[in-house]
């Protein structure tokens, strides 16, 4: 007997199912925060593993963060390193750009999303630190190959919207590193929850003040010291209730706005079928 034919599934339905599948996979993990701070870009990820990184260096000024399936984003990371190294070697080190890399990922993820049975269950951020804060770039790339040019910060994976909301409350331009780290950790922690211990977080920066390669992984005593400074800055920032109320109102206002302003994680609802209707 031949395999029974299940009937017709419209392309829209297939895409929606694939997007749904990928979105579920990505939401299962913990969120990763990428944000600008005074001297560059900060990456923070809750990660119990010391060896299996979610954050990595791609090139002199470019960092990478990912959530989702490890084997899938690891292959993306390696491809990115190969792409950057081969371009930097062929031309010049300054000719490797975050934009080019984001496009490469977008193309590849887009192709996989449309052509494979299973799309990649990943969401990634490509961040490039510039000469000045205005030149910093943060690109968020989703499983279907959509690219978002984020301003100041990006949250991927897990409860991305809730974490993003909490981060937005605390984020402002040009935060010093300890304050920025504090904001990121506060955003990653559910209200009333405990912050992850030092051993459970992965932190790295793209520091524009560094020579040669800007990427620096913060570990061990250096990270502990920074976390202590972050804790102190948090103590200083804890103000009377009035401000918290204000913050809450602001959050509510944001929540009301959210449906309009927040970019969709994936194509939702009407999908462009290209039929020109």
């Amino acid at each position, binding site marked *: 007997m031949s395999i029974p034919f299940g009937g017709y599934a419209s392309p829209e339905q297939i895409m929606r199912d694939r997007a749904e599948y990928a979105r579920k996979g990505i939401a299962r993990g913990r969120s990763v925060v990428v944000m600008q701070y005074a001297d560059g870009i900060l990456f923070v990820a809750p990660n119990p593993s010391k060896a299996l*990184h979610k954050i*990595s260096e791609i090139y002199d000024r470019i960092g990478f963060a990912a959530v989702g399936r490890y084997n899938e984003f690891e*292959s993306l990371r390696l491809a990115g*390193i190969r792409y950057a*190294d081969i371009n930097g*070697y062929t031309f010049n080190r300054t000719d490797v750009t975050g934009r080019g890399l984001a496009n490469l990922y977008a193309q590849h993820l887009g192709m996989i999303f449309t052509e494979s049975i299973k799309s990649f269950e990943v969401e990634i951020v490509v961040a490039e630190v510039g000469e000045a804060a205005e030149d910093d770039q943060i690109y968020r790339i989703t499983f279907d190959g959509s690219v978002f040019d984020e301003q100041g910060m990006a949250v991927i994976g897990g409860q991305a919207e809730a974490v993003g909301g909490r981060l937005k409350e605390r984020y402002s331009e040009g935060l010093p590193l300890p304050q920025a780290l504090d904001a990121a950790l506060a955003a990653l922690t559910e209200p009333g929850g405990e912050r992850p211990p030092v051993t459970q977080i992965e932190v790295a920066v793209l520091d524009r003040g560094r020579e040669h390669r800007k990427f620096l992984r913060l570990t061990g005593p250096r990270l502990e010291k920074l976390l202590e400074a972050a804790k102190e800055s948090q103590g200083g920032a804890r103000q009377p209730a009035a401000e918290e109320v204000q913050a809450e109102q602001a959050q509510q206002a944001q929540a009301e706005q959210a449906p309009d302003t927040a970019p969709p994680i994936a194509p939702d609802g009407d999908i462009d079928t290209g039929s020109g209707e």
Partner: protein
Amino acid sequence: MASQPAWVNSLFTYTGSSSFSEFLGVHAPNLHPARNESLAAPVGDEIPHATTIVAATCAGGVVMAGDRRATSGNIISQRDIEKVFRTDDYSCMGIAGTASTGLELARLYRVELEHYEKTEGRSLSTEGKAHRLATMIRGNLPMAMQGLVVVPLFAAYDPSHGTGRIFSYDVGGGPYEQREFHSIGSGSIFARGSLKKLYRENSSPQDTVLACLHALYDAADDDSATGGPDVMRKIWPVVSVITDDGFRRLPDDEVAEFVESMLERRMTAPEGPTAPLR
């Protein structure tokens, strides 16, 4: 998509080792400097040659210095060429021989070390770095037979030993680990003779820098292809120091101070410092 280079398709699917040059060799051989195309005739002296490099270990690290001259036969083709390169945080290399091949080799080698570090999440061991360079030199052997000889000197701070280490090579590869100090290039005989007398074990990086500068001066004194410090044009040797703190190329004004103190001494003693006989 026919117009894109072949390596684009391999970016996501390549499952080979963490070596960048191997990836190039398989998927973009046209970018690889070590090609087996033989030249019609040896080119020899017509292309610029880089000359003398010295390296010496110091307390907790290693110092490497190189003169700034490149020659094509009897012509000085460049007065301010740089021949000492940072290859990663804890290592550097100097090149002697065909300048163009050497520059390209240094560029590729730097990417090679970084590529491993980024993909594997750890740095290569010092021996690993030295071996890798040997293979790359050997890849250039056919070109070397045609006269495009390039021979590097590799120096690194080894975090596992807490000391500086020096490796030399020949056209067939290597590496040959050298104790205390070594020099390569056309003026290397004179530089080595000088260092033999001036080198002090476990002396400070500053003293070792001075000894290296004296050695380069002695090389320039007796070898026409090695350039001495150019006081008029303010062109100083390239000096780099690698310690626990990482690679550091001394800024020009710092080197100028060393050179000036050396020259002042040479005004009264042109042959430089003398080693005690008894």
